[in-house]
């Protein structure tokens, strides 16, 4: 079926509109559908993360102390303004140099600035109790906030047990 508007392209958008009890069928190609103002349900939502990142990066540059604006990472030679412009860091060392700014940024993006997932290779056994303790302390805080003291007591016991184990 050809698009009823341009009568050139194949209609790929099929719609039924009901206006004042009158049924209207529309068969349009994608371009003509867009001209009539019908958009894909994802339109404008395709890059929520990228847009969000760009907007908070802009704000973060304004708060950056002037001396940091001059400094560059010694490994990859990326400066903070470069990062703000591209949204990409240059190497692992950048995370050390721009740490305070990144902590703030990561909290805004992820709602956290602490990794709680997998740890590579040998580090696993050493770090596991530390992370477990962090996790329990958070649960404890939540339980206390919710005034669930029975649960809080249980969590506290588990934290104590974990500390004894080390």
């Amino acid at each position, binding site marked *: 079926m050809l698009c009823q508007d341009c009568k050139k392209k194949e209609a790929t958008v099929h719609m039924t509109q009901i206006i004042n009890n009158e049924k209207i069928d529309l068969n349009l190609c994608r371009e003509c559908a867009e001209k009539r103002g019908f958009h894909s349900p994802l339109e404008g939502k395709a890059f929520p993360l990228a847009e969000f990142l760009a907007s908070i990066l802009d704000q973060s540059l304004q708060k950056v102390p002037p001396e940091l604006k001059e400094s560059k990472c010694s490994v990859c030679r990326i400066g903070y303004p470069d990062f703000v412009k591209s949204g990409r860091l240059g190497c692992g060392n950048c995370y050390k140099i721009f740490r305070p700014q990144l902590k703030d940024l990561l909290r805004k993006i992820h709602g956290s600035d602490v*990794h709680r997932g997998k740890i590579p290779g040998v580090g696993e056994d050493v770090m596991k109790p530390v992370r477990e303790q962090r996790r329990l302390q958070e649960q404890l805080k939540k339980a206390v906030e919710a005034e669930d003291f029975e649960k809080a007591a249980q969590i506290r016991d588990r934290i104590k047990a974990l500390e004894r184990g080390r």
Partner: protein
Amino acid sequence: MFEEMVRREAQWLSGEGKNSDIVLSSRVRLARNIRGVPFPTVADADTRQKVLSYVKIAIEKSESFNKGMFHSSSELSPMDKNFLLERHLVSPEFVRDQNGFRGIFIGRDEKISIMVNEEDHLRTQAIKSGLEIKATWQEANRMDDELSKFLEFDFDSDFGYLTSCPTNVGTGIRASVLIHLPGLVLTKEVEKVISRITKMGLSVRGFYGEGTDVLGNLFQISNQTTLGKSEEDIVESLEKITQQIIEYEGNSRVTLFRDAREQIEDKIWRAYGILRYARVLTSDEVMNLLSALRLGIRTGTLSGIDLRSLNQLLILTQPAHLQKYFGSQMNADQRDKRRAEILRERLN
């Protein structure tokens, strides 16, 4: 290249696995970088070349990856790259290939792959048919363990795995499902569901990931944040929300068939008729018609077609696949004819 692969079924679209009528596939990818080496976006050609060879050596040394193929981007034509994109083995960013010295390892059954020097040094991917997010994560995790025997990854005790873009830092995980939601689209509930999903910290995209349009009512849903939660928690929450969406989709199909059975069945049969008899078909049109067929199989309107063949048609009718399949370069008009030809052949 890939003349043999184009005739092979993509295993991650085998139609197996849980809820595979609605969830086509589950995918997990992990972003990793090698310690002390600038990320690919800023590294010079020499450094990128070195990274490419490090990863290649690691893959050759490891027994886990012994059945598979490694290709550098320099051996791949633009059409080869598009072919891999259509098969979901590389990203749109990989195809753009601005810097060169990229590489792709493809496991024998295409269920695992590793992109080298895309935005990060490594992007390890596992993909399975159906709603199998946990199993897919376990597979990706196993690959990651294996690679870390040979490569030291950039890791920070506070920030976790370090990545080029701060939106991937921490776990570096992106877990996603490719889900078919015609019921929600037809009942116009889909925008409500999408906004609910995005509020729960997930993101929604089209068929080929970042920045792509919705085609054939196929949506890609993935986790948005990567830091502060364990991989298991991220995977579990995606699985839970996906199950909820499956339920919404089911309800909307019940509504559709209750209120508009004839119209829906007509739509399905018309799609079947066009696919079986048309002489010229565009890729977008086929995606949308195949969506109607998928709905028809699930609701029992159509019989005699299985999900497996339908899934394969979804890939085989894409532009680069068609050209590989017929072994010649074709313009859009020629492709539209050949596409109709394949569909007539497979559906009759």
